[in-house]
């Protein structure tokens, strides 16, 4: 995994660790939406919503297209697949390592008895 990918992954996890940003992503899975529509859905300021959206854009999870005065947001799920792959790799790695740890520590214990 290269540096670029790792930094992108970092942004994805950063984006996912906030409930508002998760909710924005969930909103965009159904359909594209205007920034103003999304702002209307959340009881926080337009300024805060804009910050969350910019973070999602930096993580590559959301793309913005400008149509006249409307800024239309779309979900880009690609980076989520990278995140899932990372999680799956380490889930298997640590499951296997903990199994090996158990084998080592319990066999040592038997030898001591």
């Amino acid at each position, binding site marked *: *995994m*290269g*540096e670029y*990918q*790792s*930094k992108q*992954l*970092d942004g994805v*996890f*950063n984006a*996912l*660790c906030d409930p508002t940003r*998760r909710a924005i*992503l*969930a909103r965009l*899975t*159904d359909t594209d939406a205007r920034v103003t529509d999304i702002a209307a859905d959340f009881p926080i300021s337009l300024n805060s919503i804009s910050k969350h959206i910019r973070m999602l854009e930096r993580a590559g999870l959301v793309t913005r297209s400008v149509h006249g005065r409307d800024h239309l947001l779309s*979900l880009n*799920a690609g980076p*989520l697949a990278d*995140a*899932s792959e*990372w*999680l799956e*790799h*380490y*889930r298997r*790695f*640590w*499951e*296997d*390592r*903990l*199994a*090996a*740890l*158990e*084998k*080592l*520590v*319990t066999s*040592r*214990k038997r030898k001591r008895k």
Partner: protein
Amino acid sequence: MNAAIINTPAAVVVRRTIAASAEDLFDAWLDPEALAIWMRPGSGIHNTQAKVEPRVGGRFEINMHADSGVIPHSGVYRVIDRPRRLVFTWLSPHTGEGETLVTVDFLPRDQRTEVVVTHEQLPEAKREAHNGGWTRALEKLDAFRAPSHE
């Protein structure tokens, strides 16, 4: 897709309950000889070497020797709280240039111990906290403690 987004966790959490004391399990994480045995993934790794500086701020290196070459893993200990909690950064070819964070909790369960590994990408804010004052504060705290586990 909706569910996938909501369910994508921000960290890997793996648990295993083992019939051993928290102390024995904890020590196996900081003992280079033990690490060389249990940090040897089956597929193509024929030998693992571990070097450990078991103190807060100390480094570890776990080199897994494969046919294709050495796969280096390294990191720095952030918390060493025997036998309850171990926190360290983790850098490997799989994490790219970015450091990740591993927290290991050892929870007593009758005669057994539940080991909980939480592995997460280090968010920027947390990284600054780790590299800055927080680490230094922990180092000082550690210096105050009896060096029973070092």
